[in-house]
């Protein structure tokens, strides 16, 4: 589920970026914004991006309904590592040694957090609601 969260968030962002690049620079005037608005609501790429971001929100909410916030939050940072790899593989970007070190730190950090118990609070809140 955390994986679904990261994949959805990254794919959504990339699709939005792709969609907005297709539309081109937005002219900052009433007409320009109206024009851009019309183009965004008719762009399939943008809708697909929004769909993925919605998928992210749903998986995020689902994960948080049982796992600790302090468990999910660092795990989400795994996305930065995935994004760097995607940039290297698909966009052939050059990545500096400092950035690789950052990716390494994130991976080790996420592994460390992943080994802790996902849930440390009791289901007290739920009984409060049903009571």
């Amino acid at each position, binding site marked *: *589920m955390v994986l679904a969260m990261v994949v959805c968030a990254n794919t959504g962002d990339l699709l939005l970026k792709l969609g907005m690049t297709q539309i081109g620079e937005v002219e900052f005037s009433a007409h320009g914004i109206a024009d851009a608005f019309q183009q965004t609501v008719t762009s399939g790429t943008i809708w697909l991006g929004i769909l993925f971001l919605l998928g992210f929100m*749903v998986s995020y*909410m*689902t994960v*948080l*309904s*049982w796992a*600790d*916030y*302090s*468990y999910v*939050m*660092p795990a989400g*940072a795994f996305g*930065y*590592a995935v994004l*760097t790899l995607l940039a290297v593989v698909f966009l052939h970007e050059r*990545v*500096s*040694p*400092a*950035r*690789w*070190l*950052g*990716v*390494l*730190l*994130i*991976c*080790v*950090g*996420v*592994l*460390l*957090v*992943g*080994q*802790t*118990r996902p849930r*440390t*609070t009791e*289901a007290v*809140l*739920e009984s*409060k*609601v049903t009571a």
Partner: protein
Amino acid sequence: MTGTILLFACLICGSTGGEIAITYGMKSVGEPARLRPKPLLVFLGRALRSGWFWLGIPLMALSFYSLLALLSWHPVSFVIPVSALSYVVGTLGAKYILGEKVSPARWAGVILVCAGVALVAAG
């Protein structure tokens, strides 16, 4: 300078506060019965009726617009490393507000992630 600090405060407090409110809301809603479309829809319906969820959304919007404003003033390689502090603030919030038990291993992981995100954005 004061504006920048204020915006960073809005960014970090907004995202942390918003996510903590949503976590609290989701914990009180309870997890979906099964990961199937129908139980998920029931879960979402209950989540959308939670006040905590609607407290969280504007806070996260506040943090999003602070981020946009900061990015229009400063380069990404400055804004994201500073905002990585929200991992530490968020963990403190999880510990003291949500009552989660943060073990030393988890703290170490959070610090590593925080430093890693700062390096990725600055590098």
